[in-house]
């Protein structure tokens, strides 16, 4: 139960000048680093880790956490303005954000993503504050069988509801999954597709793939294009404001995205990529204007943005209560905590209530700071577009190279970006969507790991996948989803065969 004394000690712990200052530094740095394609939270946190050794636990935690969720605000900026994801979780925002920018609604897109991110973060923080222990229980009850069902749901959702041919999506996902197998196999220790290279031992880097497929491919595609640009755009505050039904549409999408993101954040390993993709798929499915998706539908950016921010906040639940970091960046934060002498885990809430509540309050304050920071910056970012492309794109390529190198100090990663860039460009020419490849890259290895582990644990009995109610519910949703698509296809084919009905003609 929430103890008022703990809340108060948390507040007093946070409200010191040092802690608040570092909170601001953290979120500002996070936003900035999120905007730059290539450099992400990983780099920033790894670089600042040694500094945190000298700081108080609360100060260093607040700063690192600020960087973590701050990047989710900034990542969409590059996605919208340049069609390059600032972080892998904002790759989905490219799909509708960039078309909006091309329609002159870039300012609106940036504003909506900032607000959706805020909504997602705040609600996610409330979930963390009030429901951390029961939500942690959910994380525990998700075993490999349940994870597998969830991954299958995610993959099918994206396949069935993505743009273009289903077969093309499936092909892209498969290529991504194949790429994901590179590295050491968890169960046997065998090296797969590493060609003896130590740099491929741990697999291909996710950031490298995301940057290459989206970022570098975009640069390559624009090389040689004659720059068509109207007179320099004057961005007034008025033009940034969303119009008409933008507000209700994006608000509803943001709330749905928050629910999805909060759920996936609680499951360590599920990840922000999956959350944002699922939110996009859901928005497309429930929207009345689903034809607009891919051409500037505002729900297509509001939902995923809220999702990845809610994900970033609730990801602290398994981290703090179970000691289970959801991804590599969170693992770094756990390292920083342990160096400070704070051990996340089941006893964390009991032994460090003040620290927990100080952190929760810092999330609220940090997100407020981010909103205040990001909205005026919208005008600045849009003005960036007035830089001629022949200067902008080389600068971006340099940034991408520096960024990806800084993550693992490995030249192999930079080469990966180059190879992925060429691959991504090729895919564009053949009209394959790049987003499913990224999803396949993330979910394919997850699917393999959990499928094999579930069977190992159950001594080979396939019944393990339907033996828990969670698994059954999720698989049931999968079946319903497939059925709904099949029925719709069937109906539309019948319609075409029969010809327009008299009722249609009257209209």
């Amino acid at each position, binding site marked *: 139960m929430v103890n008022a004394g703990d809340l108060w000690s948390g507040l007093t712990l946070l409200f010191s000048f040092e802690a608040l200052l570092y909170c601001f530094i953290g979120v500002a740095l996070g936003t900035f680093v999120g905007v730059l394609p290539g450099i992400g939270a990983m780099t920033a946190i790894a670089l600042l880790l040694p500094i945190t050794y000298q700081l108080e636990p609360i100060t260093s935690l607040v700063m690192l956490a600020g960087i973590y969720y701050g990047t989710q605000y900034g990542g969409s900026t590059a996605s919208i303005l340049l069609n390059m994801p600032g972080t892998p979780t904002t790759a989905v925002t490219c799909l509708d954000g960039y078309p909006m920018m091309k329609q002159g609604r870039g300012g609106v897109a940036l504003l909506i993503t900032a607000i959706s991110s805020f909504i997602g973060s705040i609600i996610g923080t409330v979930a963390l504050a009030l429901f951390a222990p029961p939500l942690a229980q959910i994380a525990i009850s998700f075993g490999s069988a349940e994870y597998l069902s969830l991954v299958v749901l995610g993959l099918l959702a994206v396949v069935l509801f993505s743009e273009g041919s289903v077969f093309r999506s499936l092909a892209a996902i498969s290529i991504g999954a194949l790429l994901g197998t590179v590295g050491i196999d968890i169960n046997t220790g065998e090296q797969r597709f590493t060609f003896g290279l130590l740099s491929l031992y741990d697999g291909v880097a996710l950031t490298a793939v995301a940057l290459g497929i989206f970022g570098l491919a975009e640069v390559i595609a624009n090389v040689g294009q004659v720059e068509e640009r109207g007179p320099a755009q004057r961005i007034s505050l008025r033009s940034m404001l969303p119009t008409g039904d933008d507000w209700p549409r994006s608000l509803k999408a943001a709330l749905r995205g928050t629910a999805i993101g909060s759920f996936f954040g609680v499951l360590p390993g599920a990840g922000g990529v999956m959350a944002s993709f699922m939110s996009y798929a859901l928005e497309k499915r429930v929207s009345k204007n689903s034809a607009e998706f891919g051409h500037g539908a505002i729900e297509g950016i509001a939902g995923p943005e809220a999702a990845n921010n809610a994900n970033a906040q609730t990801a602290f639940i398994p981290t703090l209560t179970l*000691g289970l970091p959801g991804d590599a960046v969170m693992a770094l934060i756990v390292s*920083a905590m342990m160096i400070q002498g704070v051990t996340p885990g089941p006893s964390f809430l009991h032994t460090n209530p003040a620290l927990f509540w100080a952190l929760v309050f810092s999330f609220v304050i940090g997100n407020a700071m981010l909103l205040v920071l990001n909205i005026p910056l919208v005008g600045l970012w849009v003005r960036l577009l007035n830089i001629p492309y022949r200067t902008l794109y080389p600068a971006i390529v340099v940034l991408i190279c520096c960024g990806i190198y800084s993550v693992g100090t490995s030249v192999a990663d930079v080469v990966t970006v180059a190879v992925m860039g060429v691959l991504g460009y090729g895919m564009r020419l053949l009209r394959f969507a790049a987003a499913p490849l990224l999803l396949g890259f993330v979910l394919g290895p997850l699917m393999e790991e959990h499928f094999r582990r579930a069977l*190992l644990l159950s001594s080979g009995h396939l019944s393990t996948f339907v033996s828990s109610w969670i698994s059954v519910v999720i698989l049931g949703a999968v079946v319903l989803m497939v059925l709904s698509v099949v029925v719709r296809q069937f109906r539309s084919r019948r319609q075409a065969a029969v010809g327009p009905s008299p009722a249609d003609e009257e209209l």
Partner: protein
Amino acid sequence: MKTISTAWKTLPALLLGAGIALLPAGAALAQSVPDTITVVVPYTPGATADLNLRLIAREVTETSGRNVIVKNVPGAGAVLGAVEVVGARPDGGTLLLSIVGTHVTSELAASTPPYSLREDFVPVTRLWSAPLVLAVDADSPANSVAELLEQGRQKDGGLSYASPGVNSASHLVGIALAHESGVPMRHVAYQGAAPAIVDLVAGRVDIYFSSYTAIAPQVAQGQLKVLAVLDPSRQDLISDIPTMEEAGFAGINAGIEFALLAPAGTPSEAVEVLRKEFSAAANAANVQETLAASGDAVATGTPEELAAFIDAKFEEISAILASR
């Protein structure tokens, strides 16, 4: 005659001058180890290995004044860090913190080993070790090793045991126990300790051979229980837990042993200086106390002892891998 007397007068000055000139050379000989040394830790920052080493490094800096930098090079199952040290200059300026068992296993299990522990490295000293314990879910009906193994015999498919990765100490000891007891045991690999512990708490996997530190919070909360300690003698921290020897399996001991290695070619004076400094630091009272609080035991020794230990490890692990 005048020149001779001048020469006699200048001779003492010359000798004195020569002596003074040679002094720095004498000091240079003692300077066989650079002022700043780097210890490569092949794990992510914040891992227990990392924390303990940082403690020792701080102690070395305080007592000897030498600047010790800890460099984390995680990846490839501790192989990347090892490879980095192999390529470093053998002037005593770079050391590797090694979990001996892991590095031996990585070398033996690989078809083309990326390094040779006995040829590419020079042993410096052992530092500390932590025994593994046999942990099961608190809801498990077994309360002793014997009961657990009996269950395994009754169950279809035997027992499942988790490990933080293939070829880890937890994995190998499972193979050894399956061989000794005749109970079939299925190895389930996870990416690191944390997911393994969650599955153990949830009861999805039967056993986890873990260091005590990793599961101490869960044991305190009553989510897990420890059935045995894989060490010849009982541990002070958990003195009511019997040893595997008492449970009837004298040969099943496993622990995680940490040692310092230097790249091959490092001169023996440098090795001796480093050994002295790091051993002294590891045996310092505050270091021993902190390590003991988490169940680790400081165990330093000479380079020869470490070399013998590495040879023994090679034999032991070859035998286990062959029995698979």
